[in-house]
């Protein structure tokens, strides 16, 4: 087998042989000339020359290529050794491959989401996300256009600051309107991100705030809807029934600046000139922009935050009435940007990577155990090699190479597996109204990651046993005695240590997965405070399809009437928000007459709901009344608050009749609703105010309470809506159960992966302890035979083996428990309805691992007990 078929090397080897031959021939010729016989001359010359292969060897060392040949030889030898024990090789490779794959999969998810928050953008590290007020998950957009423009133009620390507003809209013009995701962006949007157009151009500075109906298409929209038309630039398309001109196409992969969220097309901030109000105000509905900045080279995030804070302070001083609430600015790197999906990712994925890291450690310990057992049985071979002149470094190198071969093969297998598993991340997210583009990504970073993980595994599972085994004094080993083959006390200690480590590492995995699984069950079983069964929801793209306000109101009433009249429908209502779908709307709200302190934020969630909304979701109105059809645009503005909002604004008072200022207008409280879940079951209760749908509603979502399975009614509901106007876009038709699954998707990810990792951990720990106990028991067969011959009962032998195994298991469990209780503190934030040191979970996990270990020890013990002492003694 030729591993390094280097031509030059072979030629030089041949030449060296010829050189030595020539040397010998000349020496013989000289001796013959002096009168010796040919035969004696030949012998004398050979003796004088010395050990020819040795001379060749040391000479080749000088070529500087020798290591290549040596490595080739060592690799060949390692492969031969591994081929000789296929069971070990396959098991170890498979285990390592799974462990490496676990790590690389989670890493590919981190890489695809947190590390690539804005696909296509250059120098991601310089981008920071701007947030005003306190930091929380998926906050509402924090800046008005005027504030944004002031910050952009007056700062000294940014190379550029962009603003965008994410929304959806209908592409009209074809027979059926199509819902697409759109962003209103500042003119410098693509410049700041560092993206160049594929076709045409992007926006010009003078277009930013003017009514210029230009649009930039995303690559996938251009591909699917416009068939990659190379002449699309300059053509007119229809968006929400308005003609707009395509000026450019973004390159493939570019999906916009909000992490994890897709945008299909981009327009400027006020392309139709219909939003003048929000372009010229600084508060209320004019606060609508998300802002991302690119730091100047050499500027730190802290300096930039200080710069912006100073600017914001000037703005607040100049326009105090428009800047109630918290105005301090915080900057986040994009990987943990609070906008978009990364906030959630940052809370979940690193913990999973830590779990995967534990699995890798555990697997390495397991493979190290197997390797050690193998090396102990190979001690005679090693001793012979040592006495033939191999030094310790050579032996260690040889054995580490065996570990390296295993882990490289495992790494290659993991690479193949990961290219598939990296794409499974998207499976965890149910179909929903958010255009999520979350998935793992397989790029050079992941490949490097796999190489690092393999290297680590190879080092861990090769080096330790190799070093230990090479310590064996050759003479002792060569004395073939079973006692010395058993490995001496040092190897025994190392083996025990590895088994203890495996149990200690698998216990925290088991405990965490147990806690997370119970959290998932608690979440599923929790009462969110509203009805989830027998509810159908459907979005109607009224405002995105370009209807006028009057038309919209008329159509909404018609929808309510027609859907209510459908057979099987109990109650129909309209809303513009569905709870537990990771979305919410927030606004500052102040009680009438209340003057907030500087930086005091009284933000509340708000939702606009029609009459009978509370009835259809079974949310009781505790005081006052529900909305009625009379709460329309002509009537005075009214509010229903939940208990938390009532307590926050009017503690100890009757909220009915009190008034709250939102968007600068006063709303009168007419009812108090019971608290219900808004985003996550395990959220701390946030105040919410409900407004009347026919006064403030924006999106139109039909919510239908049905008698039977809600999905059975879906076609009828769609038909009824299309009966009003066949061009009405209807989308996201789902049952409430399906919608609210979104809220637990992260809990599902956590518990699924933790569960899988824990299962791997359990199997590894149990096979580890089984392997070691079985191996030791086998070595002591002879001893047991003698014991039994001298009168020990079978039970004594059983106890002997069991005690040995259980002592290991016990130590491992004790260490693991301490480790686990420390670790569960890390996941405390993820738990719901259960504490990190929940006694039931702790006890059951310890019992499970203990029982499995007992079983693993019992099997070899039982086998030893059943041996016939006579044959046992004969066996050596």
């Amino acid at each position: 087998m030729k591993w390094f078929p280097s031509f030059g090397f072979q030629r030089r080897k041949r030449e060296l042989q010829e050189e030595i031959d020539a040397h010998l021939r000349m020496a013989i010729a000289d001796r013959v000339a002096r009168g010796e016989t040919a035969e004696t001359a030949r012998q004398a010359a050979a003796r004088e020359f010395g050990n020819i292969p040795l001379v060749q060897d040391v000479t080749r060392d000088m070529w500087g290529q020798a290591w290549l040949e040596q490595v080739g030889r060592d690799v060949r030898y390692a492969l031969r050794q591994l081929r000789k024990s296929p069971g070990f090789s396959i098991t170890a490779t498979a285990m390592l491959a799974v462990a490496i794959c676990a790590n690389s999969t989670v890493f590919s998810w981190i890489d695809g989401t947190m590390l690539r928050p804005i696909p296509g953008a250059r120098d991601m590290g310089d981008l920071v996300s701007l947030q005003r007020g306190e930091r929380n998950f998926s906050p509402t957009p924090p800046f008005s256009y005027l504030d944004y423009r002031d910050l952009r133009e007056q700062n000294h620390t940014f190379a550029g600051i962009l603003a965008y507003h994410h929304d959806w809209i209908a592409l009209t013009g074809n027979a059926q309107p199509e819902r697409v995701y759109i962003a209103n962006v500042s003119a410098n949007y693509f410049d700041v991100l560092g993206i160049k157009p594929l076709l045409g151009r992007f926006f010009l500075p003078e277009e930013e705030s003017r009514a210029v109906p230009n649009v930039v298409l995303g690559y996938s929209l251009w591909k699917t809807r416009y068939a990659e038309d190379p002449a699309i630039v300059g053509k007119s398309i229809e968006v929400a029934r308005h003609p707009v001109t395509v000026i450019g196409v973004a390159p493939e992969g570019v999906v916009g600046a909000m992490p994890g969220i897709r945008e299909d097309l981009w327009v400027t901030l006020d392309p139709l000139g219909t939003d003048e109000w929000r372009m010229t105000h600084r508060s209320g509905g004019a606060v609508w922009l998300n802002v991302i900045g690119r730091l100047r080279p050499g500027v730190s995030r802290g300096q930039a935050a200080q710069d912006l804070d100073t600017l914001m302070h000037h703005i607040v001083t100049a326009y105090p009435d428009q800047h109630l609430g918290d105005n301090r600015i915080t900057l986040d790197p994009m990987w943990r940007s609070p906008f978009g999906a990364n906030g959630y990712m940052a809370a979940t994925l690193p913990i999973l990577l830590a779990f995967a890291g534990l699995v890798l450690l555990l697997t390495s310990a397991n493979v190290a155990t197997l390797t050690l057992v193998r090396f102990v049985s190979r001690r005679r071979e090693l001793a012979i090699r040592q006495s033939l002149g191999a030094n310790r470094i050579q032996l260690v190198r040889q054995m580490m190479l065996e570990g390296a071969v295993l882990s490289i093969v495992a790494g290659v297998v993991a690479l193949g597996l990961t290219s598939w598993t990296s794409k499974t991340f998207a499976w965890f997210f149910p179909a929903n109204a958010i255009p999520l583009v979350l998935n793992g990504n397989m790029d050079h970073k992941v490949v490097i990651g796999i190489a690092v993980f393999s290297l680590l595994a190879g080092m861990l599972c090769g080096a330790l046993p190799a070093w230990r085994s090479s310590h064996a004094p050759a003479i002792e080993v060569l004395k073939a005695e079973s006692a010395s083959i058993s490995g001496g006390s040092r190897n025994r200690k190392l083996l025990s240590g590895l088994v203890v480590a495996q149990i200690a590492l698998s216990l925290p995995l088991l405990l965490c997965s147990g806690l997370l699984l119970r959290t998932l069950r608690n979440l599923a079983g929790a009462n969110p405070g509203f009805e989830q069964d027998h509810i159908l929801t459907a979005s109607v793209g009224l405002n995105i399809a370009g209807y006028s306000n009057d038309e919209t109101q008329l159509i909404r009433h018609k929808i309510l009437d027609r859907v209510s009249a459908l057979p099987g429908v109990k109650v129909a209502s309209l809303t513009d928000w569905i709870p537990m779908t990771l979305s919410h709307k927030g606004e500052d709200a102040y009680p009438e007459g209340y003057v907030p302190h500087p930086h005091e934020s009284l933000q509340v969630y708000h939702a606009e709901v029609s009459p009978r909304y509370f009835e259809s979701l079974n949310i009781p109105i505790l005081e006052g009344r529900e909305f009625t059809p009379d709460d329309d645009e002509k009537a005075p503005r009214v509010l229903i608050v939940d208990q938390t909002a009532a307590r926050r604004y009017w503690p100890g008072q009757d909220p009915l009749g009190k008034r709250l200022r939102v968007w600068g207008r006063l709303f009168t409280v007419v009812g108090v609703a019971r608290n219900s879940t808004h985003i996550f079951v395990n959220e701390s209760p946030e105040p919410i105010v409900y407004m009347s749908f026919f006064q403030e509603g924006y999106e139109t979502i039909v919510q239908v309470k049905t008698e039977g399975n809600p999905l059975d009614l879906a076609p009828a509901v769609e038909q009824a809506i299309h009966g009003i106007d066949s061009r009405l876009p209807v989308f996201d038709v789902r049952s409430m159960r399906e919608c609210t699954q979104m809220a637990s998707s992260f809990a599902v990810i956590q518990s699924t992966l933790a569960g899988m990792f824990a299962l791997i951990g359990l199997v590894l720990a149990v096979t580890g302890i089984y392997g070691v106990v079985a191996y030791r028991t086998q070595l002591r067969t002879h001893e047991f035979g003698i014991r039994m011959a001298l009168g020990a009962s079978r039970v004594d032998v059983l106890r002997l083996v069991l005690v040995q195994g259980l002592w290991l298991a016990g130590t491992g469990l004790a260490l693991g428990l301490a480790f686990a209780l420390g670790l569960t503190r890390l996941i405390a934030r993820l738990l719901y309805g259960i504490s990190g040191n929940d006694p039931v979970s702790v006890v059951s996990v310890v019992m499970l691992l203990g029982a499995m270990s007992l079983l693993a020890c019992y099997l070899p013990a039982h086998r030893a007990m059943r041996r016939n002492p006579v044959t046992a003694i004969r066996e050596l």
Partner: protein
Amino acid sequence: MSEKDQYKNRIELLQGTLDMLILQTLQWGPQHGYGIVQALRLRSGDVLQVETGSLYPALHRLERQSWVQSEWKQSESKQKARYYRITAKGKKQLASDLGRWERIVEAIGSVMYVKPEESES
């Protein structure tokens, strides 16, 4: 003289001096490995016996450092042999090796030939 005695009379080569000896031998003209061994033995009056296990590694190392060059040629006895030739770089190296050697010899000499009373003072 028995072989054993012969061996005893040989001087262990100081580390690094083999390179110098080889380079010096090649000063007199290109030579093959066997020739170098013979030349060194003759010139040292049978005292210096270079082991092949040291000679060939040294030659190949010197070649790698470009102090010598090698080529295959016919020897006087019609043998095909590998001849080594010293290069300009090798000559420079030889000069510096020689300088170092002389300094060592001088230093050792001044230690060894010091009068006892002087060393005590």
